[in-house]
């Protein structure tokens, strides 16, 4: 009898796959909630290098200095172009609201025209600056907008991951489902697959690098590949500062016109 118990225990250990000692198995929803709730800091300053690659292998590189601050019900972001030279000091401000259905407010300042203009994006499914990221991909999607299912647990690179399938509750979402690889102890999505309305794989997001900055894990290098168009966007963050106390007054039209 004792031997039997031992075997059962060993088998169970194998199935649960080692260093996992939660008494109860987490549900998909709980896992995604932990991802959503992971602390990200109140504000962030960084130098973003965005590299776009098309299917003929052409490359475009944009350097941007960006400031973000979380105001609870809204997130404000301001970006200044550093290069290419002909768009230097062009700035872009985005206020996004956590209330569902409320469109982002967006402004752009064109130094050549010396004017700030409002622009509007019709939906979150628009691609951000010609990249492979939609505004939605860049923002945090609330866990209750999807139904989540834990598919399996497996190793991704050297990290133990939960593999979660998420399907939108509402039908008009741009993806029919997404599959995320969530690192167990870090609650970071290391890889994510996006499936289009027809259920075909559309894009793959991979996190190549994350760093511990001021006690917070910050993803600093990601690649998004659109497999249908063979188009790729690489986002690389440098000089990341967390919680440096960016003031509310940083996010105004006047600051936009001032440049760097």
């Amino acid at each position, binding site marked *: 009898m004792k031997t039997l118990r031992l075997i059962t225990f060993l088998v169970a250990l194998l199935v649960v796959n080692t260093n996992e000692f939660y008494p109860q198995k987490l549900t998909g929803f709980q896992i995604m909630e932990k991802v959503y709730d992971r602390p990200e800091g109140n504000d962030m300053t960084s130098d973003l290098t965005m590299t776009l690659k098309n299917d003929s292998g052409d490359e475009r590189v944009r350097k941007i200095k960006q400031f973000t601050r979380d105001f609870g019900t809204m997130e404000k972001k301001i970006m200044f172009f550093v290069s290419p030279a002909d768009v230097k000091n062009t700035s872009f401000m985005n206020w996004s609201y956590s209330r569902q259905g409320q469109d982002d407010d967006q402004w752009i300042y064109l130094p050549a025209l010396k004017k700030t203009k409002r*622009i509007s994006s019709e939906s979150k499914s628009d691609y951000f600056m010609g990249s492979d990221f939609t505004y939605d991909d860049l923002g945090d999607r609330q866990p209750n907008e999807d139904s989540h299912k834990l598919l399996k647990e497996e190793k991704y690179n050297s990290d133990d991951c939960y593999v979660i399938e998420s399907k939108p509750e509402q039908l008009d979402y741009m993806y029919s489902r997404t599959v995320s690889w969530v690192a167990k102890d870090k609650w970071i999505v290391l890889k994510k697959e996006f499936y289009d309305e027809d259920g075909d794989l559309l894009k793959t997001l991979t996190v190549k690098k994350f760093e511990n900055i001021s006690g917070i894990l910050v993803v600093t290098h990601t690649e998004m590949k659109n497999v249908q168009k063979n188009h790729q966007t690489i986002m690389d963050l440098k000089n990341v500062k967390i919680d440096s106390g960016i003031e509310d007054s940083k996010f105004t039209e006047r600051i936009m016109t001032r440049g760097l």
Partner: protein
Amino acid sequence: MNKILIGLLKYPYWIFGITLVITIVFLSQMAQNSRMETNLDEYMPQEHPAFVYSNQAENWFNIKDGIIVAVRNEKNIYNEETLTIIKKLTKTFQKMPQVEKDDVTSLYTADNIIGTEDGMDVKSFYSSIPASQEELDDLRKKVKANKMVYGRLVSEDETVSMIIAAINDDVFTQEFYEEILSIARETETENVSIYVAGRPIVEGTMALLGPADMKKMVPIVLLVITIVLYLTLRSIRSTILTLLVVLLSTIWAFGLMALVSIPIYAVSTMIPVMLIAIGVADGIHLFSHLQLFRWKNPEVELKDAVSDMLNKMWKPVVMTSVTTAVGFISLLTSQVYPIKYFGLFTAFGVLSAMLFSLVILPAGIMIFKLPAAKQRKAEKNDINSGFSIAEKILKYKSISILITVIIIAVSIAGIGKVWINSSFLDKFEKDSDIVLTDAFINQHFGGTSTLNLILDSKEPGAFKKPEVLRLVNRMQTEVVAANPQVGNSFSLTDYVNRMNKVMHADSAEYDNIPGNQELIAQYILLYEMSGDPENLWKVVDYNYQKLNVNFQLKSDNSKTINSAINKVETFKDDFQKLGIDMNYAGSGYTGLVFTDLILEGQIMSLVLSLFIVIMLLGLMFKNIWIGLIGSIPISITAIISFGIMGWSGIPLNTTTALLSSIAIGIGIDFAVHFIEQYKLYSTRGDKLLTAEKTISHSGRAILFNAVVVIAGFLVLLFSVFPPNRELGALVSANMFISFAGTLTIMLIMLNKSNIFFKNKKDN
């Protein structure tokens, strides 16, 4: 050679058996391996620089041919019903597996760049259907104010709107076309009618209609040929044997094609045409000889009669076939693979026909015990009339020469009028649906055909420079203004003009390219942020180093494309000064280059084969003058048939160009048989008698041959597909010219030259 052939007469069943086995092998190969090549790209010489560049450019800018669906409401399109149909059709096409979602353009998908109080917006014109009259009026105003859409996706009279579904070259099938047509038909209502056009439709329909029509017509052609053949040979068995030669050689040609896994191209459908025209000749000459021999020597055994036939005829049969085959092999010089294959397999077919004529035909005669046809009185008259014809021709030779010279002169003048046409649309009936729909869309919009001008700079960012974009803009305006066939043009400039305008409170004053590169770059960045940047990559590349300028043309014919290109080329120097090269891309342009290549190859091969024929005949008859005289039927047939095309306005295209090959094949047949007979009869030393005998012997066979083929191909005049009608008319004309040329001017030249007689005197 003739000994072997006569020896084979002992084993007719074996010969039939072996041929049958080989034929069955070829047939089974055809059943397994034959496939029709429908992808037009496979026809193009992909390594040719123009195609290499065009293919690259098609990749850079996602250039594809579009199926155009026009939605028409006679009142106007701004009502719930029409707008719903536009939306529904757009979504239907986007969901089709043959179409990529981003490749569908319509009022529903179009971006509207508009100026607002405090900035710029890129919005769709509508997503849910406007319900109130107010909203409808608003939409109407928005469309009218946007030049990027007004006149392009919505006609200026507001009654028609276009949906364009761009597709890859290889997805068009009959089923796909039927599906689109049935979607269109089902969607039509009392108020809204729907039209389907565009190059894929035209190209696809043509690729399907041509062979389908041929399939219907060929049995009738064969039937007519059979009947006429029977009337001339006056023996069912001879008729069957002659047709068997054509049939077997066609099977062998296509069988070999299947064996070496080469697909059937559209031009390959011309192989049976060639083999019918050329293959019946040997049979007719052989039977004609046999018949005449048996009339003269009724007491001779059948086997001896056949032996005599082989003795006298094997040489001209081999000579004509080898020369014709070499003529076709000269098509290997063409840069276009389907044409090379056409030449090669026709040559193989011609040589097979030779083999069958010399082996199967005699074997068949032995097996079927061909009875000697009774000579009718009329036929005796025939021979007499042959005599009198020869006499007359030689009597009035100066008139013959004069007439020939005049006809040649008129034809040469006509050749100057021959025009090359790569148009697909021009191949359809003027009142066919496809032509009418095309005309309807051309009347309301810029045009159903596209010419892509690709500007290529060495310097990245060149197409953000004001001076460059201003030049592009000026060129676009001038090309459209100068040529009524160019409906409109579209490029990056249209985006920049529009954005400059809306960012300056919609002032028409700013509907132009700003003079500041930073501003242009920032506008584009702004568009990328708020619009669908995918649209930009259809007109400019990533590094702003290459630009795609679209010109919409109202016709796909070569004249229109060339006149647009000529106007564009006047800007070449200006662009060169800015370090920018010009190139062209797209299916309209490559079609043009392709047609030129075919013609170039065809003319090259015509000249080359003429030269080879002269040399071969010169060698065979051991006299170069005979070579020159023997080339007369070919030369005059080619010249006159091009002349006819010039005067009658039949354009040169891939089909009609290939017909010059038939001139070679038939011309050689006639010339060689005639000269060979002339030589045989010349031994008697009487010039007039030689001519008379040749006319009533060879001339008779040549007449039969001409009558049989002309009667058969005249059937094609009743075809519903214009290119097939042209084919019928031109083959018949070629046949007649060769016939007339051989019996008149060539006979006169032979007679005047005294070649065979001089030799006698020397001896």
